């Protein structure tokens, strides 16, 4: 089906942005615009689909490397790339257990909390963004060598959260946004900002939509000040450019 201009721009967004983007979409429609059509999936899938000619007008990745990937292939308008959102990395534990007393610094010893066979649930450091940040943070803490065999590597942050909620893993490392939305977990501590590269969500306009006014408008809307309140509501931070 060819897409008419009345149908609104096609927005490829990382799955972790689902809620915030849906809410923004509603606002955009309330303002009398055509609803954007979302496709939420893993950033990798979305990037590859764009490479194969997917009709995406806007792309929001959950990490920088996949945005780099499409940029190298000249699929986006470089000038429109920006990363307005920020997120924090937190250590969580099941809500129905007494909170372990942990402060996160270079001397934290996880093994005391994990016990003999407990694991830390997080994304797979090899490819899931939250896992990459976790690896950086643990490395910063000098714990990576010790802890890495004790990781439960999930394929996305929601699965990691689930493992903690269900009490399978006594600890987990997820984004603050996810932890905030779950009743099943409590935030034990927040990783110091300097322990890992900033958590960013790069946005960009696809090259094929360079002249698409609706797409440009929506991108401007979600990266603009009007969206800030919504982001905050879902627990995101905003980066000062």
């Amino acid at each position, binding site marked *: *089906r060819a897409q008419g201009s009345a149908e609104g721009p*096609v927005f*490829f967004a990382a*799955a*972790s942005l*689902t*809620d915030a983007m849906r809410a923004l979409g509603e606002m955009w429609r309330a303002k009398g615009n055509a609803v954007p*059509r*979302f*496709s*939420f*999936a893993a950033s990798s*899938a*979305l990037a*590859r*689909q764009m*490479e*194969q*000619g*997917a*009709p995406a007008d806007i792309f929001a990745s959950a990490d920088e490397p996949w945005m780099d990937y499409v940029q190298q292939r000249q699929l986006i308008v470089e000038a429109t790339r920006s990363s307005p959102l920020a997120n924090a990395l937190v250590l969580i534990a099941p809500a129905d257990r007494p909170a372990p007393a942990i402060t996160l610094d270079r001397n934290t010893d996880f093994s005391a909390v994990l016990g003999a066979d407990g694991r830390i649930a997080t994304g797979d450091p090899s490819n899931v963004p939250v896992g990459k940040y976790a690896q950086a943070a643990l490395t910063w803490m000098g714990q990576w060598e010790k802890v890495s065999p004790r990781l439960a590597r999930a394929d*996305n942050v*929601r699965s990691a*959260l689930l493992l903690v909620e269900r009490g399978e893993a006594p600890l987990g490392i997820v984004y603050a*946004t*996810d932890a*905030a*939305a*779950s*009743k099943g977990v409590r935030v034990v501590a927040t990783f110091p900002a300097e322990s890992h590269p900033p958590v960013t969500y790069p946005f960009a306009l696809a090259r094929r939509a360079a002249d698409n006014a609706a797409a440009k408008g929506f991108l401007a809307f979600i990266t603009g000040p009007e969206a800030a309140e919504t982001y905050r509501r879902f627990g995101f931070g905003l980066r000062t450019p």
Partner: protein
Amino acid sequence: MLEAATGWLTAEEWEAVRLSLSVALRSVVFGLPPAVLAAWLLARGRFPGRSLLDAAVHLPLVMPPVVVGWLLLVTFGVRGPVGSLLNDWFGLRLVFTTGGAALATAVMSFPLIVRAVRLSLEAVDQGLEDAARTLGAGPFDRFFTITLPLISPGILSGAITAFAAGLGEFGAVITFASNIPGQTQTLPLAIYAATQTPGGEATAAKLAGVSFALAVSGLLLAEMVSRRMQRLLGRERG
């Protein structure tokens, strides 16, 4: 009824239900004929490369669905060897369309149908085909009047497995056809979207329930048809 129901599911969710059904059915309908052909070649054919065909048929089963989706993307994408031809000649684009979702689903369930049909084919009493030959039935005639009816339980079983699997197909669809509401967002993709949303468990459970109900309806229907077939084939006890 529809009022209540539409209240219960959002418009987008209804769309996902409709899409799922459409995708699963299309994948079965379009997947069946080549699957029967492949099964026939595997069960009866004596040609070099038979093992290769056998392996190729099983490929989608062996690969993680994401890889299959990716391979499809590379092949049928507008830049891919097949996709570009389809696009140039027929203006047909599969990626990111409902048709594409059906294609991905069909490919994933292909081995399931082939296996079922092949199993039935191997159990066909070739004496009956021989009898048809002596009565003047050529290969096609024989296939359609004798073999096909005799393997119909296998075809039905394969189809229903494929239909059920089609309702649940996720990895290949999301990778190949993306997750576009109203076009490629089938139920499993909607369920996935719900699980990716904090607090989305209730929605996920609700949609999973719908998906299951659809599958069960399909199963019950198939069960009825199957019992009838068994009777026609004289396999039911007197």
